[in-house]
């Protein structure tokens, strides 16, 4: 039931899902370990992409279009969130040169 018929060959949906899980985990490593706020935002985008892959896989496996619509909405929300997050970061960077996320731990400034 989890095999997908793609282009004549049989692929397993579990491989795609495992790839999505691995990408999500690597994005989590990026959010936890990196200090530069810009790289943290980029890692969050990586996690969102992994989730989109999972949505598309299930949409294909269930042959239901809702997964692809959900992925489109998720892409839109990710774009809006990237816009606002980067605008805030640009605002902070105008005041002081931040290279460590711990410098932003207080609201003042």
């Amino acid at each position, binding site marked *: 039931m989890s095999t997908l018929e793609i282009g004549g060959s049989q692929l397993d949906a579990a*491989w795609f899902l495992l790839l999505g899980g691995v990408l999500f985990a690597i994005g989590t490593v990026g959010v*936890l370990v990196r200090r530069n706020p810009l790289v943290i935002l980029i890692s969050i985008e*990586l996690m969102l992409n992994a989730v989109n892959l999972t949505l598309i896989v299930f949409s294909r496996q269930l042959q239901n279009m809702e997964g692809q*619509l959900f992925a*489109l909405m998720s892409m839109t929300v990710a774009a*809006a969130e990237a816009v606002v997050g980067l605008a805030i970061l640009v*605002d902070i960077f105008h005041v002081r040169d931040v290279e460590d996320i711990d410098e932003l731990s207080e609201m003042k400034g």
Partner: protein
Amino acid sequence: MAIVIFFIAAAMAVAGAVGVVSFREPIRSVLSLVVVMLALSILFLLLSAQFVFVVQIIVYAGAVMVLFLFVIALFGPTRRLAKTQLRFQSWLSALFVLALLGLIYSMLQGIQYRQPDKGTDLSAFGTVQSIAVGLFTTYLYPFELTSILLLVAAIGAIYLSRKKIDDL
């Protein structure tokens, strides 16, 4: 053939993802993320999501990543490297992420795939028409809300990047 494409795209995606979190300069992280997005769009095309494949390339890799590149171009390369870090932070996060991966893997083992819904033929799956039918009939309300969300985000970005006049 499809298996070969899958493995090439998957290897590209994982290599790009490792590059995103490993490179020291943010510009290389952004470019690695573009590689990940291109690999994922190949996978989307493999999964019969033609419209999402094009949207991923045009909107995500072509607009959102260019936005990141503009911000990096505005601020130039990082001049100082971060010095403060918890001593055990890398090991602790590696541990947590391995636990997360184990959790995801065990969840994948327990998935009961249900039968596909009847009545959809794969020739019209993922085409623009089927996306439009869903987006403008059943999911019209989320579609309109998403456009309002984009409007709010654009207004917020314009407001946040306004020129502040100090002598008023």
